[in-house]
């Protein structure tokens, strides 16, 4: 794959703290313009992975390349292409938003004549234009979070790493930040760590689930939905037959009883059993009242993988 289309390439990333392995053999790859959701329960190793990807923590093993630049061999060149918002935004409360963002672009080596534009653009994208002269310490938490994101994108990095950007915000702010992240994904590659599932479903192209330091699931959101929807149906019957009878219907693989009158049918995928099911239900008077494809949400996958 050409280095232009791949912004992040990490292989075999491992981090041990003494005898404890926090991150074990993690592979990550990100293409330009992609938003990757990085999911996992608290303590799964998400933050440690992000610290390694942004050069804040040296990995015990493995390699990281940002746009083809090796982060371990040429950290300064690689870091210039990364924007990072840690879990706690690194904000200097005593500076104004303008001063702070100007400092951030200076530190990221934006040439002098482009700095003013870069700061103005970042402020506009993050909705900070009106608060440029305010002290960061006096802003609300939502605005502070936006300043943190503005800091991460102001120097036009190829890769933006956001560690739980919506933690501690109210629902309206969460919605705004999500829209912003989605928008940023149009220009940059984004890695978004979170433990909020709906967040990933609504804004990410791809999802990786981490558990106890290992990647336990990795696929696109679209594939996840396509794979599970239509493969499982939920059936509601007033006078249900035996499970063996249901399993005998062509196209049905396994039958699982959910409660008194509900069944979850795994389908073989070879033929659609809807018609024969309805026909049998009518003929044998099963009292069919519910038949719907089961929506397998990310939550199901997540719970299954991490319990």
């Amino acid at each position, binding site marked *: 794959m050409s280095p232009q289309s791949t912004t992040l390439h990490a292989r075999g990333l491992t981090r041990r703290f003494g005898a404890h392995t926090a991150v074990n053999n993690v592979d990550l790859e990100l293409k330009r313009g992609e938003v990757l959701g990085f999911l996992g329960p608290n303590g799964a190793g998400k933050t440690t992975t992000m610290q390694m990807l942004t*050069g804040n923590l*040296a990995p015990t093993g493995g390699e990281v390349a940002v746009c083809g630049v090796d982060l371990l061999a040429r950290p300064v060149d690689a870091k210039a292409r990364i924007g*990072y918002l840690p879990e706690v935004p690194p904000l*200097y409360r005593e500076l104004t938003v303008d001063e702070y963002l100007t400092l951030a672009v200076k530190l990221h080596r934006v040439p002098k004549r482009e700095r003013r534009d870069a700061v103005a653009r970042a402020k506009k994208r993050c909705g900070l234009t009106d608060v440029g002269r305010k002290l960061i310490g006096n802003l609300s938490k939502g605005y502070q979070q936006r300043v943190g994101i503005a800091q991460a994108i102001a120097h036009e990095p190829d890769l933006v790493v956001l560690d739980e950007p919506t933690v501690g915000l109210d629902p309206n702010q969460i919605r705004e930040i999500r829209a912003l992240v989605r928008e940023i994904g149009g220009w940059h590659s984004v890695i978004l760590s979170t433990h909020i599932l709906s967040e990933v479903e609504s804004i990410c192209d791809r999802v990786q689930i981490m558990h106890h330091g290992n990647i336990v699931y990795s696929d696109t959101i679209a594939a996840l939905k396509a794979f599970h929807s239509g493969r499982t149906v939920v059936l509601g019957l007033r006078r249900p037959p035996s499970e063996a009878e249901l399993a005998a219907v062509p196209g049905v693989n396994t039958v699982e009883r959910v409660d008194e009158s509900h069944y979850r049918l795994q389908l073989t995928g070879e033929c659609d059993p809807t018609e024969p099911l309805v026909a049998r239900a009518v003929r044998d008077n099963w009292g069919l009242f519910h038949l719907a494809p089961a929506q397998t949400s990310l939550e199901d996958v997540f719970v299954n993988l991490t319990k």
Partner: protein
Amino acid sequence: MIFTIAAKELKSLFASPLAWMVLTAVQLITGYAFLKRLDDFLQIQPQLVQLASPPGVTELVVSPLYATAAMVLLFASPLLGMRLIAEERRNQTMVLLTSAPLSMTQIVIGKFLGLMLFLTLIVALVTAMPLSLAGSTSLDYGLLASLCAGLLLLAAGFAALSLYVSSLTAHPVAAAFGAFAALILMLLMSEAAGDGVRARGWHLPAALVQVFSPLKNFEPLGKGLVDTYALACSVLLVMVFLVLTVRRLDARRLRG
């Protein structure tokens, strides 16, 4: 890039009450010491005239003033130094610098320089006092310059050590106290240690102990004497602690 960090440190410093408090206190203390000394000098001046080669105002008033300023710096630098790394780590703002395309050396030198600019301002304010006498008496500018240089080197040593202790902990007050204790220990012990080592006949180690004796290195310059060995020791002290700080921060990245 180093100057960007230094400017940021200076700006943050002046945005906090600490900087203004320190400046005020330094002015009050050194101002009092200066006026008291000047008063004493005016009283004994008639007797001084009778001496064959009487000491001038620079020797009798300005030298002690710089000794007082050195004392005040001993208290001020740990407090100012604790902000540089310990407080940044406590507030978790250090990440902005460590994820920017900067080397650890640039970060450390930038922070050191920021603190040094502030300490230079203190030295400049102290120097303004003797300069106010320039219109009414003749000053020994050579001695004044060497006092200035000596005080700056002393401040650099204090600053470098405070910066290093600041990198050891994420607790600012612990960092300040640690740096203060280390400075006092260094002042108390270095001379005795040097003598002890020399008494055993180890001449090179005895000479090296002087690196950790900032006051001893200040003495020659305080008398208007440019002793290159003392100068080299002062510079070495600063470098030792800056290198230690860089190593300490790198180790944090490696070990987590």
